[in-house]
């Protein structure tokens, strides 16, 4: 039993830390750490910095531009990045589509799209969910009908995260309406500038615009944009959903969030003493800190098993469930810590350019909104109920 990283891994960690200290722009870190909004440019700037170092596509094979890291290195990179206040890498191109193209794409698709993901030419978004198909993804109804050298796509996608910035969308579409529900689905790459596409914002409960609806009306998509075989899209979709789960528990992000919470709770006062000295709040804080410490080890155990070649089990579902529960609880405690000052909400205060005086403590502005926004964590990415059902199945129930 060896819980420490190897000397090589420790050296790698040091290299990552140095890189982040030197290259991660201060203005982006400040936004992340204070809960301010990130612009499209912020994301692009960060991606370009990673790409320049060859670290953007951490899980791609080296021949396509990946750095050739082990799962442990990938974990270390994600963890250290979160602690350093880096934004999460927008996953749609790099983490989701990339591996699918690498495994199932044509040579032409790989040659065209992979470099454009790396250099930021294409901002990708995901067209999976539909209004009628949430947890039951395979019930999707957006249709693609072959017409000469194109598919004609009609339908609607929803919860398209950052779709407002996107150049391209990868979509699951129904190409065989008569087949059983998983069997008539294909995987298409669609240019967002195609005639017949309309993107409409969905405003979330916190007033933010992060997700969208995407409507398709007689959108023509070249047959060359089909990935793999027609009607086999479900296979690729499942591959995508299970491929990259190193960071599914979000341990680094939760540790950073917990640090922030601890700082806030140390500054907030109750009966003249720091809130951290209130036994009830201290107990809430200690419980989540202990649970997170345990999960950090659970996550490393899963990684170590994966590194030793153990087959994937229900572990990623376990990490997803508990990881999101922990993150939600940290958000909830941060909100509680603020006391009455959780109530005020001035949307403009979340823009980095905002110069207004803060209402209440200077860390208060984003807290309640972030708590509400984080309610999505247990819903998106395969709801925690779907994950529990997967775990139960793996347990033989």
């Amino acid at each position, binding site marked *: 039993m060896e819980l420490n990283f190897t000397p090589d891994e420790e050296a790698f960690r040091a290299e990552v830390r140095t890189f982040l200290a030197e290259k991660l722009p201060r203005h982006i870190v400040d936004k992340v750490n204070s809960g301010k909004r990130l612009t499209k440019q912020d994301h692009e700037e960060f991606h370009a910095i990673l790409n320049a170092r060859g670290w953007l596509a951490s899980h791609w094979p080296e021949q396509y531009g990946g750095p050739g890291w082990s799962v442990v290195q990938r974990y270390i990179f994600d963890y250290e990045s979160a602690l350093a206040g880096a934004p999460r890498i927008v996953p749609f191109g790099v983490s989701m589509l990339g591996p699918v193209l690498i495994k199932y794409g044509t040579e032409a698709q790989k040659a065209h799209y992979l470099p454009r993901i790396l250099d930021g030419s294409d901002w990708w978004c995901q067209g999976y969910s539909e209004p009628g198909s949430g947890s039951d993804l395979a019930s999707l109804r957006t249709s693609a009908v072959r017409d000469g050298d194109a598919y004609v796509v009609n339908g609607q996608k929803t919860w398209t995260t950052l779709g407002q910035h996107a150049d391209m969308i990868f979509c699951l579409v129904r190409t065989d309406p008569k087949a059983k529900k998983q069997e008539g689905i294909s995987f298409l790459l669609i240019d967002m500038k195609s005639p017949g596409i309309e993107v409409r914002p969905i405003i*979330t409960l916190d007033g933010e615009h992060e997700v969208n609806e995407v409507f398709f009306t007689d959108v023509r998509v070249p047959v060359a944009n089909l990935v793999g075989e027609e009607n086999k899209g479900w296979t690729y979709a499942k591959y995508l959903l299970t491929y990259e789960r190193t960071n599914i528990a979000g341990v680094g992000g939760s540790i950073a969030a917990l640090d922030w919470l601890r700082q806030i709770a140390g500054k907030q006062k109750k009966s003249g003493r720091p809130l951290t000295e209130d036994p009830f709040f201290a107990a809430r804080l200690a419980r989540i800190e202990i649970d997170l410490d345990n999960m950090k080890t659970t996550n490393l155990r899963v990684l170590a098993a994966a590194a030793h070649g153990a087959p994937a089990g229900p572990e990623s579902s376990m990490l997803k469930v508990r990881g999101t529960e922990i993150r939600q609880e940290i958000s909830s405690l941060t909100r509680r810590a603020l006391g009455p*000052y959780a109530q005020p909400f001035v949307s403009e205060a979340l823009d980095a350019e905002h110069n207004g005086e803060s209402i209440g403590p200077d860390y208060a502005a984003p807290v309640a909104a972030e708590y509400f926004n984080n309610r999505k964590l247990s819903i998106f990415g395969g709801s925690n109920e779907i994950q529990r059902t997967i775990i139960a199945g793996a347990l033989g129930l």
Partner: protein
Amino acid sequence: MNFEPTDDRRMLGDSLNRYLGDRWGFEAWKRVAASDAGHDPAIWAGLVELGAVGALFTEESGGFAGGAFDIHAVFHALGRNLVVEPFLGTLLAGRVLAAEGGHETMLASMIDGSEIVTAAFYEPQGRYDIADVTTRAVRDGEGWVLDGAKSVVPSLGLAGTVLVSARIDGDATATDGIGLFLVPSDAAGVEIRDYGLIDGGRGGDLTLRGVRLDAGSRVGGAAHAAIEDAVAAGIVALAAEAVGAMGFCRDATLDYLRTRVQFGMPIGKFQALQHRMATLAIEIEQASSAAINAAAALDQPRHARERAISAAKFTIGRVGALVAEESIHLHGGIGMTWELPLPHYAKRLIMIDHMLGDEDHHLGRYIALGAAA
């Protein structure tokens, strides 16, 4: 033993719900919540007309009811309909004015809706402690000079007058030595910072810099007991409002579970969701009982009253968070969207926990009251 409301209260609740059903609704909420005023004068006038303010006060104070279960009935309807009008501040301030006497004119203006008065009992450093008062009131001839700051005052921007607690004497957190003062919002040295709240209401920070008040501005004498009583009434109100909002969340979630189809059936047929919904229904009944217990205790001697009040606020906080989080979650993605009423009720439930003392504050207080028994 009879848990049915009296006919008068039932009629009051029914008429408020009917009026709000006709004249208020989610579109109106979105309009008002996005506005700078955070208040709809027509709705406020309509509710005043129906007696929603008068019902909060006794006949001798110029109202027509004023019992704890009247407050309960009014705020239950407000909660069920997600009303954002300045009722809480009116209740907190009016309750003190009515108890101390001599403020009939102001109360009459509050009850006829022509004047909005709110109450500023909390301070930035004091969290939820009404005794943690560092705003100073210093004698100035016959009058007073006030200096200090008050935090997240409900509906501050709408109020022509603010009932402010200030320390005349004693240590920063002593229950003795606190006085209450009526401060006109346009008095020299008063600075009001008005802002929106995440649940769609409005609040504000109040800064007082050398504000000179005449002798008549002082309300009553030693004020801690009066503030505690007003907060108790405020908690009866918030508990009822929360129960009203919980009822909406329960019904909306049940509707969704019955109609949303996934995997070929309504998701309400999935046992895991059924059992969670059953738990939610049980908890809402418990919260409803807590709100009733608080109302029933409002006229009891202090110790019994405050125990029931803290028990209720604790329960409402605990169950409110559960209802808010579970209702959003059971709705899935759609529960995260601005265009659905549900998440705004959820936000209101969460924010009620940040008013007049949260779960932990009242659990600690309940324990301390028990130890002192």
